[in-house]
């Protein structure tokens, strides 16, 4: 295992679909242990950026510099568990070594699913499935964690609990995190830094310096929220 965790560096990244440049010379650095939330309207290039960093864009033309560590984990919007593998086998999918299963058990315990190792994914609730997916990310000891709206399909209560869990796990394992979301509150609540993407470039890059238990009622929270909504082209009260 690498002793010095590396962050993530993206420089002058261009990605094109046909004539349209979805990412147009984008620069982004994420330090080890830093939690960055990526906001943007649909079509702003959020997912394209995430897929480029994850190395999932084969048929896309583009240029630019990507400096990504070896150990990258991705959390998808759906939990994407293989229905024919039991929970533990899903967690350790692709992990080698004799102690893989032991690490898998620990990861499951960390997300609060101790004892569910032998369950089938279809026997779990949506929130539990997403926790298994988090365990699958953790067990790889990631230097970079990419999350593509991982809470998008969860109900509000489950989402609140997942926020707490994700914050706790990131504080303990300190990966560089890039969380793609469309939820401004989620971004302000979780991230050290929020980046707003517009037309393939970074429109706004703002550090969130609120103290640890972040409350929606905090005036500081409100001002971040207004600032980000403005950058997204939404003014409070006005119908877009």
């Amino acid at each position, binding site marked *: 295992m690498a002793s010095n965790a590396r962050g993530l560096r993206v420089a002058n990244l261009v990605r094109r679909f046909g004539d349209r440049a979805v990412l147009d010379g984008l620069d982004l650095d994420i330090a080890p242990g830093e939690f960055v939330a990526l906001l943007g309207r649909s079509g702003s290039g959020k997912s394209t950026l995430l897929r480029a960093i994850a190395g*999932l864009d084969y048929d896309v033309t583009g240029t630019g510099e990507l400096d990504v560590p070896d150990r990258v984990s991705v959390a*998808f919007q759906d939990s994407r568990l*293989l229905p*024919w*593998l039991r929970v533990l086998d899903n967690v350790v*999918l692709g992990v080698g070594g004799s102690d893989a299963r032991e690490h898998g058990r620990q990861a499951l315990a960390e997300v609060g699913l101790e004892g569910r190792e032998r369950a*089938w*994914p*279809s026997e779990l609730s949506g929130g539990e499935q997403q926790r298994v997916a988090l365990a699958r990310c953790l067990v790889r000891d990631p230097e970079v964690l990419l999350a593509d709206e991982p809470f998008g399909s969860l109900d509000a209560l489950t989402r609140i609990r997942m926020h707490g869990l994700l914050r706790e796990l990131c504080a303990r394992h300190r990966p560089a995190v890039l969380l793609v979301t469309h939820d401004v509150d989620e971004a302000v609540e979780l991230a050290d830094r929020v980046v707003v993407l517009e037309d393939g470039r970074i429109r706004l890059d703002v550090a969130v310096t609120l103290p640890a238990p972040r409350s929606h009622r905090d005036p500081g929270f409100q001002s971040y929220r207004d600032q980000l909504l403005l950058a997204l082209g939404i003014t409070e009260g006005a119908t877009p």
Partner: protein
Amino acid sequence: MTRTLEPPPRATSPPVTTRTRKRRLGLGKPIPFGRVLGPLLLIGLWSAASATGLLDPRILSAPWTVVEAGVRLTEDGTLPDSIATSLSRAAIGFLVGASVGTSLAVAAGLSRIGEALIDGSVQVKRAIPTLGLIPLLILWLGIGEAFKIVVIALGVAVTLYIQTYSSLTGIDSRYVELAEVVGLNRRQFVRKVVFPGALPGFFVGLRLGVTGSWLALVVLEQINATSGIGYLMFQAQNYGQTEVILVGLVVYGLFGFVSDALLRVLERRVLSWRRTLAG
């Protein structure tokens, strides 16, 4: 105005707590041995029609005559011999066909070269009914056992190929993406994602193939056989013995039913991760 002070009449009676239960859209609990109820009812009707003389024995023998014929044929050894012959034909044909079909599907499903060489040819073969090949195969192979097994195997192989190939190539692209993200190599990908994902389709192929092998057997044994259940029935037709024909049909039916039931059991065990509507 005083009227509003009177208690509403409904309050005097106890509150009604019965709620109409919502109907489940799924099928509910299976009836124990439910699958044999239908056939039993049919046999009952048949017995009634024979006993009351509604059914002419020259058209259809009574159930007990059929049972007697079955006992007689078993005692003189004709039936067991015929069953053994037919069973081995169907089993060998099925096994050969299933192996060939599955191997071709794996070769075509997992490599572009295999796909280019195999898929087109099998799709052409699929358009030609296997039974239509009988004249040609008789010229090549004669009318011996090899011919029968080849005809059965051909039908089974095509069925299994179609089902297995389409499920191998129809793996959800999201799972492919996942496999790339977690860094599976090609072997692990095939073993953990492609094969398990294709198993449901493979089982559909197996069950269709078993049915197909019995179908081919019936046809083969009635045109060019000197042994087997079909031959027994063909002979009985010459002598007008409807009860022997029925014995043959019952045996075919039992074979089909039992083989399908065995595959169902196997399928439920192998695909225990699936929760389907039928429970």
